[in-house]
C-alpha cells in the first residue's frame, strides 16, 4: 500500500512538473469543447443559392421570395443561364442552383405539373443531403399553398389538408448543442485517457527508467495500477469541467443523474486506459504508441455515432461497433443527459463496458513483461 501511494505520488509529481503537458491536459480540452460545440453543428445556415429564372412569372417570383425570406438561404444571384450558374458552382461560390424553365408559370396556371430543377454541389455529401431536404421543404410548403388556392378557386369549397407535424422528443427544438456536447465530452475524456496512458509506459522505456524499475521487486500490477489511477483521476476531473461547461455555459438539460454518468465514465475510462497501457507495453517508442493510438482513436470515433448516426452505417459496420467502447459511452451519455435514463435502462451497456475494462486490463498486465 505504501509502495502504491508513493508510486502515485511520483506519477503526479511528473505530470505536474511537465510544463508542456499541463496546458495540453487542462486547457486544450476546454477550448476543444467550446470551439467544437459551436462549430460542429448540422444547423444549415447561409446556403448560397443561384436562381436561374427563365420564366419571370409571378409564380416563380413568389417561390423565390420564399427562399429569400428563409434564414437558411441567401439568394446570391438571379440570372438566366444555367451555364453561368454552373460556373459559380465550380468556383465554389454557390451551394445550389434552382432552375425555373420558361413554362413554369404557365404550367402552374394551367394546373399541370410544374417542375423546378435543383442542382446541388455535392462535394460534401452530408451537407448536400441537407440542402436537398431544406430546398424540398421550402418547395413543398409552396406546393401546398398553391394547390390549396387553386382548389379553392375551382370549387369554392375550402379544402382540408391532413397536416402532419412532428414532435422531436427529448430534444424538441432539434438543437445541435445538446446533441453534440455529450458526445464531445466523451471525445474529450477519450483523447486524454487514451493518449496519456499510451504514451506513459513507453516513455519510461524510451528514457530507460523501465530498466531500473524492472530489476526491483515491484509487482507488475502495482506498477500498472500506479499508471492507471492518475489518469483516471484526471479523466474524472476533465469530465467534471466538461459537465460544468455543458450545464452552466451551454445550459444543456441534465435529465439524468450525474453520478450515473460518473459510474459509466469510471468503467469506460478503465477500459480506455487499459487499452492505452496495452499499446504502451507493446511499443518501443512514443512515436509508435502515438500512431497506434491515433489509428484506433479515429476508427472508434468515426464509427461511434458522434458525427454520423450509427443506424445509417452498413450492417457490418454496425456489427463492428459491438467492439467500439466509444459508441457505447456516447449512446449512454446522451441517454442519461437528454432522456434521463436510469441505471436499469443502460445496464447492458455498463455490463459490456465492464467486460471490456476487465479483459483489456488483464491483457495489458499480462503483456507487460519485466523480463525481455
Amino acid at each position, binding site marked *: 500500500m505504501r509502495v502504491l501511494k508513493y508510486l502515485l505520488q511520483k506519477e503526479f509529481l511528473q505530470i505536474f512538473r511537465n510544463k508542456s503537458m499541463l496546458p495540453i491536459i487542462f486547457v486544450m480540452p476546454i477550448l476543444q469543447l467550446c470551439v467544437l460545440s459551436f462549430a460542429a453543428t448540422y444547423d444549415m445556415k447561409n446556403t448560397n443559392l443561384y436562381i436561374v429564372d427563365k420564366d419571370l412569372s409571378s409564380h416563380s417570383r413568389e417561390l423565390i421570395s420564399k427562399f429569400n425570406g428563409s434564414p437558411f438561404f441567401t439568394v446570391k444571384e438571379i440570372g438566366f443561364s444555367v451555364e453561368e450558374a454552373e460556373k459559380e458552382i465550380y468556383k465554389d461560390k454557390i451551394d445550389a442552383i434552382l432552375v425555373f424553365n420558361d413554362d413554369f408559370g404557365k404550367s402552374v396556371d394551367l394546373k399541370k405539373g410544374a417542375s423546378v430543377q435543383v442542382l446541388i454541389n455535392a462535394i460534401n455529401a452530408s451537407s448536400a443531403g441537407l440542402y436537398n431536404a431544406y430546398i424540398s421543404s421550402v418547395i413543398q410548403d409552396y406546393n401546398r399553398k398553391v394547390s390549396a388556392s387553386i382548389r379553392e378557386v375551382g370549387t369554392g369549397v375550402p379544402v382540408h389538408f391532413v397536416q402532419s407535424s412532428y414532435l422531436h422528443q427529448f430534444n424538441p427544438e432539434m438543437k445541435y448543442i445538446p446533441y453534440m456536447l455529450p458526445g464531445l465530452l466523451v471525445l474529450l475524456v477519450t483523447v486524454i485517457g487514451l493518449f496519456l496512458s499510451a504514451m506513459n509506459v513507453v516513455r519510461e522505456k524510451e528514457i*530507460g527508467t523501465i530498466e531500473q524499475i524492472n530489476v*526491483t521487486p515491484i509487482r507488475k500490477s502495482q506498477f500498472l495500477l500506479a499508471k492507471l489511477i492518475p489518469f483516471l483521476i484526471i479523466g474524472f476531473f476533465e469530465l467534471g469541467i466538461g459537465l460544468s461547461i455543458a450545464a452552466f455555459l451551454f445550459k444543456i438539460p441534465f435529465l439524468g443523474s450525474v453520478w450515473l454518468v460518473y459510474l459509466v465514465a469510471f468503467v469506460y475510462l478503465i477500459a480506455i486506459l487499459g487499452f492505452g497501457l496495452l499499446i504502451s507495453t507493446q511499443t518501443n517508442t512514443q512515436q509508435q504508441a502515438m500512431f497506434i493510438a491515433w489509428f484506433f482513436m479515429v476508427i472508434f470515433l468515426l464509427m461511434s455515432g458522434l458525427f454520423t448516426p450509427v443506424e445509417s452505417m452498413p450492417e457490418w459496420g454496425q456489427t463492428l461497433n459491438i467492439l467500439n467502447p466509444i459508441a457505447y459511452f456516447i449512446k449512454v451519455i446522451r441517454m442519461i443527459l437528454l432522456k434521463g435514463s436510469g441505471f436499469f435502462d443502460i445496464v447492458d451497456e455498463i455490463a459490456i463496458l465492464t467486460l471490456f475494462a476487465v479483459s483489456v486490463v488483464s491483457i495489458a498486465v499480462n503483456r507487460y513483461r519485466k523480463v*525481455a
Partner: protein
Amino acid sequence: MNAGISIENLSKRYGSVQALKHINLDINSGELFGLIGPDGAGKTTLFRLLATLLLPDKGGARMGDIDIVGDYKQIRNLLGYMPGKFSLYQDLSVIENLEFFATVFDTRIEDNMDMIHDIWVQIEPFKDRLAGNLSGGMKQKLALCCALIHQPKVLLLDEPTTGVDAVSRSEFWQMLKSLKSKGITIVVATPYMDEANLCERVALIKDGEILQVNTPQEIVDQFERKLYAIKSDDNYQCLLDLREFEFTNSVFLFGQTLHYTDVRKEFSLEEVNSYLKSKGHLNLEIEHVKPGIEDCFMALSTKADGYE
C-alpha cells in the same frame, strides 16, 4: 551470506547474433570483479541476464544458491543494478529519486543511510535539484545511491564511468573500494583497460566469449613477448609499414605511440629501425616498455581470432 556468482554455460542469441557463447565464470563473494571488453563484446547482455531482465537461451547462473531464472524474485531483492545509460527520473529531484527507489524496495532512506552515507554526503547539497540537471559525475553518484538503497549483496555496474571526467572516475573507484569493504560483491563492466588494474580479478571478454579470467597482475605477467613502443613523425603510416614488415607479430596504435611485438624471440632492434628508416620514417624512438592490460587483451584477442 555467500554472494558469489557462478555462471555456467550461459548463452544468449539475438536473432542471428550470438551475443554470448557458453560463458563459464565464477565470481567470489565480496570480490571486486572487472568485466573488460570492447563495445559489443557482450558485457551488457551478461549483466541483463544476471539482472533477470533477459532470459538465457542455454545455461544458467546462480547468485549464492539462488537461481537467476527460477528464483528471479529473490534475485531482485539482493541485487543492485546500475545500467550503462542513466536511467533515473530526470524530472524528479535527487531526494525524490532516492525516496522512490527506497519505497519500491519497501524500505526507507534512514534505515539504509549507513550504506550510502559516504556517497550521499557528496550529493546531499544538491538534493532538491532535478536529476536531469546534475553533472555526469553527480548523476553516477546518485545512480549508485539508488542502486544501493536496499542494501544489495551483489552490485552490477554496467560501464559506470563512461562519459565521466577523470577526477570523478577515480573518485568513483574509491567509492567502490569502500563498498567492497562492506562485503558486497561488485561486478564492473568497463571498456577502459586502465580500470582493470583497480579490480581484484578481471575477465577479458570479446565477441561473447571470455578470453581469460585472472588477476590483472597475472594477466600482465603472462605476456610472453617483448613489447616495444615506437614513436615516429607519422604514426599512421608507420603502422601501415610495420604491418608489411615480415617479422611483425603485432602492432597497434596505443595513444601517442605504436606498440610492437616481434615474432622472433631474439632479434636486434636495429633491424626494425633500419626497416622503418628505409620506408622514410624520421625521428624514430623505439624503447622497451612493460605491457599493460590492453596489450594483453590485444594479444589474446588476436590469438583467439587466429584459432577461428
